[in-house]
């Protein structure tokens, strides 16, 4: 009671000169931080545009629709890499989202309280593993296992001449689009699970307890109360996970098989925008080659922007409901 009173008195007291001076400085500091970020972002876009301009000028709109990538003849097109990026990121999201939801729900609703902390920490720790480690693990551990226990049985069981056979052809060493998507799923899973868990924890206990009090089962509480409550935030978490999957570089480069052009089957080699840049930028000497890689970077930037914009729109819609 006395503490509350003193706070009230302090708030009513006239501001000291020193205090207002500090306020002003703080304002300037925050304003600088915000504008600096904006300027850096603007500078990035401008420099990507300038760097990519020779490629856009040379190939025109065809740059986006051609999957040809031939550094010897200096013909470059973004379609193959863009397709690879979208396909792997989408597949990764499809694999990771149900698992991430499951992990988060288990940790918040079902987990014995003694296990809650160790498992939660382990999930957060997974998010901190560098992507190159996932790449190495993917290539040397996951790919051989995946080839032996998943890819080979599927390829063997496919009947010749069917669409399924076309969709499952590939080099039987466990690399390709599907493997890359699975590795990506493992990479974005902890991130999404941790965010979703935080969201579940924001639900006021009264809300859930009231539902239980009305006689709901655990499933009903999760399905009818918890999930709708966090839906807006969950979309944000999912989109951030998707953003990470879109831009992931090293792990994908190791496992995707790196061939330009459209992937035609789930075990086929492909490439993503980030893996193409990582592979070729260091050794690119031709103006058009360098410029095409920078242009690819701009395309990835635009894709990420669209994803974030979509997330905004979805969140906005949810808020209106």
């Amino acid at each position: 009671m006395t503490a509350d009173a003193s706070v009230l008195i302090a708030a009513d007291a006239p501001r000291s000169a020193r205090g207002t001076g500090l306020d002003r400085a703080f304002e300037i500091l925050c304003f600088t931080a915000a504008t600096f970020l904006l300027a850096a972002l603007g500078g990035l876009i401008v420099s990507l545009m300038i760097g990519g301009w020779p490629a856009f000028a040379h190939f025109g709109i065809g740059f986006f629709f051609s999957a040809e990538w031939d550094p010897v003849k200096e013909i470059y097109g973004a379609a193959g890499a863009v397709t690879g990026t979208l396909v792997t990121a989408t597949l990764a999201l499809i694999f990771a989202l149900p698992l991430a939801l499951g992990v988060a729900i288990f940790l918040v609703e079902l987990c014995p309280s003694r296990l809650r902390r160790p498992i939660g920490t382990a999930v957060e720790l997974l998010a901190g593993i560098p992507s190159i480690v996932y790449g190495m693990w993917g290539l040397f551990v996951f790919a051989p296992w995946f080839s032996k226990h998943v890819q080979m049985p599927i390829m063997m069981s496919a009947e010749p001449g069917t669409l399924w056979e076309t969709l499952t052809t590939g080099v039987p060493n466990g690399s390709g689009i599907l493997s890359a998507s699975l590795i990506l799923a493992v990479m974005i899973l902890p991130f999404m699970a941790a965010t979703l868990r935080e969201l579940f924890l924001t639900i006021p206990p009264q809300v859930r307890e009231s539902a239980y009090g009305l006689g709901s089962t655990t499933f009903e509480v999760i399905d009818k109360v918890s999930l709708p409550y966090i839906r807006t935030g969950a979309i944000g978490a999912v989109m951030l996970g998707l953003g990470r999957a879109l831009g992931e570089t090293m792990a994908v480069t190791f496992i995707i098989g790196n061939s330009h052009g459209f992937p035609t089957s789930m075990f086929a080699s492909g490439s993503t925008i980030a893996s193409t840049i990582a592979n070729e930028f260091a050794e690119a000497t031709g103006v058009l080659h360098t410029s095409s890689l920078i242009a690819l970077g701009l395309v990835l930037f635009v894709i990420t922007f669209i994803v974030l914009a979509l997330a905004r729109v979805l969140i906005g819609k949810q808020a209106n409901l």
Partner: protein
Amino acid sequence: MFRKIVIALTACLALSACNRPEDAKAPSQGVQIAGAGATFPAPLYAKWAEAQKAETGLALNYQAIGSGGGIKQIKAKTVAFGASDKPLKPEELDEAGLIQFPTVIGGVVPVVNIPGIAGGQIKLTGPQLADIYLGNTKKWNDPALVAANPGVALPDLPITVIHRSDGSGTSFLFTSYLTAVAPKWAVVGANDAVKWPTGQGGKGNDGVAGFVKQTPGSIGYVEYAFAKMNNMAHVRLQNPSGNFVEPTAGSFAAAAASADWSKAPGFYLLLLNAPGTDAWPITGATFALMHKSQPDAATGKAVLAFFDGAFRKGDEAANALAYVPLPADLKAQIRSSWSAIVGPDGKPVFTPAP
């Protein structure tokens, strides 16, 4: 709370401001030279630098950013020397006012994973290798391969082609070799990255090696040093004398020795298909690039003194790391080419001891 942060920040700023004059005052310990470029010679340059640092105090700061990056950096004059696995053509050198010289020899070795077949058992000619990489030869028991390998039980196994996914001097050498031996390869061409007609790309030597090890029936290509250190099953290749040679330090040295460097302006020479009877056909040097006119004579001198010292005392280190040192007469030619590197006064910056 905020006040504490502000105080802490101010303290940090004040401290860093204090640091600056101290840095400026710090005495430069010995000479430092900066180089950047190819990743292939980086371990050897590091070894050479270590030895010379102990001896003369000369410190080398070498950044292995890739050959393309090395060429860009030296053209932008941000480093004292650039390094590239892919030599620049004489006209490109003249245009940029650069000079280049080889520093050490390496090569490319095709490696295979065929169950039941050990390293060195399979013999291939250049055109056969090109047919495999073009996707024309699809199985190991292809009649052409069986005929070339009498007595070897080649299995009925599809061939999986593995290539480098990253742009690299290794790919440049390999595709240049295929261009030289097989007219058919012209559809693909030679570069540090090409449009591969078939197969999968692994990142770096370890990426290629990883895919080859995991894929029965695969063929890939890696640097000689990498193949040797990892005991990979190699292929014997036919050289222009008709011999099927093994990739050994001796066959790389034979290739380097039989090449006629004196007729190659700017040392623009790929040691592909060298004429020696024991020469390994896919051999190549890695190069250092410098500006002909050095704005600072001391830096230019330090770089040349570094390579001079490496040529004199660094062969053992090179052998230990599975690189192949340059032959003695080539070293002499390189030293005499250094007279073209001059300081602001127009005099050569470095005169090697005879």
